[in-house]
């Protein structure tokens, strides 16, 4: 009997301890998600009092809306482009920083700097650097003779996405370096020494020891970066606002435009919901992989 009481007491204490987190999650996550879900089924216009229920009409509209498909394509280019380059650059630099050389500490600090600079500051500086007339990038490229006329880094529909990806990679590759370097430093040195004695070349050591050790974290980091890049809004919006002519409009930017430029909250909610759905798929893969990685360790 006594045991039962203390059991109930324990449960009460546990519930009490969880309550603040529960309330915060409810207010900050559950309620907005729920209202977006609700709005996506209604015709909501900014400033209008009535929200007639329209069923799946907003979703039908979204799927037949050309800019949606354009934004989806842009999002995929943005995600695969940025994450792909980030991973290659990140792993390469992590491998370099893992070597012993004079000034390694300083090199590490410099590499991590972009990650620490606030996005707004970084983007404004890059915008200035990529300015077609005043920008330092064009100045140096012209000076070096690599280009004959100034490149419209941010105002050409063909080039703007590449520019945005460059800035995105610059800002976020340090995260990859950090993750990969952590793994590299945790690989036991004696495995390399054993391989050296066994006659493995540098390349064989990389291929047969380093890479297998990196693989789980490499996959997880790729997915994590994909998820974060997928819903990245600030870099793109601050650099190009989604232009020129929609060439850098990704799904989050499109949602923003629909909601706060066109004031079509209902349709924007449907777009947001589709975006969240796509992200959920990525997230499920991430959880599946991280469980497998945990099981392996």
């Amino acid at each position, binding site marked *: 009997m006594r045991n039962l009481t203390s059991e109930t007491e324990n449960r009460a204490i546990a519930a009490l301890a969880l309550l603040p987190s529960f309330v915060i999650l409810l207010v900050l996550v559950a309620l907005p998600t729920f209202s977006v879900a609700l709005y996506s089924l209604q015709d909501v216009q900014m400033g209008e009092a009535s929200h007639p229920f329209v069923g799946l009409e907003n979703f039908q509209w979204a799927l037949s809306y050309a800019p949606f498909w354009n934004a989806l394509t842009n999002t995929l280019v943005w995600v695969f482009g940025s994450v792909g380059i980030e991973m290659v650059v990140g792993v390469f630099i992590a491998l370099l920083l893992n070597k012993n050389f004079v000034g390694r500490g300083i090199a590490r600090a410099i590499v991590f700097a972009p990650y620490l600079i606030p996005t707004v500051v970084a983007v404004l500086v890059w915008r200035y650097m990529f300015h077609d007339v005043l920008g330092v990038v064009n100045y140096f490229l012209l000076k070096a003779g690599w280009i004959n006329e100034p490149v419209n880094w941010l105002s050409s529909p063909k080039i703007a996405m590449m520019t945005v990806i460059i800035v995105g990679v610059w800002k976020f590759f340090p995260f990859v370096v950090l993750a990969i370097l952590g793994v590299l430093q945790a690989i*036991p040195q*004696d*495995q390399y*020494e*054993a*391989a*050296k*004695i*066994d*006659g*493995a*070349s540098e390349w*064989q050591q990389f291929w*047969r*020891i380093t890479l*297998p*050790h990196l*693989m789980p974290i490499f996959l997880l980091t790729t997915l994590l970066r994909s998820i974060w890049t997928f819903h990245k809004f600030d870099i793109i919006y601050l650099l190009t606002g989604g232009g020129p002519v929609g060439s850098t409009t990704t799904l989050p930017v499109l949602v923003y435009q629909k909601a706060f430029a066109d004031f079509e909250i209902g349709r924007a909610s449907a777009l947001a919901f589709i975006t969240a759905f796509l992200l959920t798929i990525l997230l499920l893969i991430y959880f599946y992989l991280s469980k497998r990685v945990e099981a392996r360790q």
Partner: protein
Amino acid sequence: MADLELKEISKQFDQQFAVRDINLHVQNGELVVLLGPSGCGKSTLMRLIAGLETPTHGQVLIGGQDKTALRPKDRNVALVFQSYALYPHLSIYENIAFPLRVRGMPDKALDEKVLWAARLLDIERLLQRKPRQTSGGERQRTALARSLVRDPAVFLLDEPLSNLDAKMRHAAREELRSFQHQVKATWIHVTHDQTEAMGLGDRIVVMDKGQVRQIGTPTEIYQHPADTFVATFVGSPPMNLIEMGDHILGFRPESCLPRAYFENESDLFKICFQLQRAEYLGNETLLYALTQAPLNTTKMIARIPSTLRLDVHPGDLCEFAVRSSDLRFFSAGEDGVKIDRPASALRG
């Protein structure tokens, strides 16, 4: 297989000597144990032999050839690490096959070699498992098999038993010894565990602070320690050492027995002590005591087999003795090196 010779090997890290002036000749097929406390340089010495470090001075000769400047893979030595250094993502089979794969050995020959090594070490049934699915002892055998497939001239083992629990360690020691006999390997074994060293080694190299203190058979090391360091490092409990003015007197705890035990023997050295504490260990009893006049008051330990029934209590004054032939003498200086019986030595 081949012999191994170290000639005046020294290794400095930032002006500090990790090992200094080491000379050692390991015969073909001999098992030599490097024994010493942690930080004594034994692992560095092993890494120097393997080629993972280059000596600041001196030569490493394997099979009579100077290998000092060669890279690890060109020395034909195998090193079994304390951690075993197995590759966690590879199966036991692939771990053993690794040295052959990086050499590009054809699959069929490779398969035969791996199976041969696995059979020899009795790990055939584990071949498809990953290292994490095997026990400590099985990992150790895998590491041995991996070193074996290369037919190395010299086997180096860095504290291979330290990751095993006490019970398994005993069995693994047996296995190592019989394995070494079977493959007739030239074998260097590093440990800080003197029981392991005594049980395994044809010869033991006792090291301290980067230098060799003594090289000898287990009997020589135990019975005739070269200095007070060896005398106290080897043996548990250590040799008793008593300051005698111009020299130090030493005797093993088990050679100090009740005077009555020796009956009519004449060449005895009498020791009178006051018992502080008795520790009953089942097979034996350890007597912790303070020596009495004419000796200086010094802490000492006597080790009495349980078959010798003895009724003593803390505070008792006991009359014990050591055979003169079991006494050892060391110089009084800091080195405490072994000396002949000094003229001033007390007669019993």
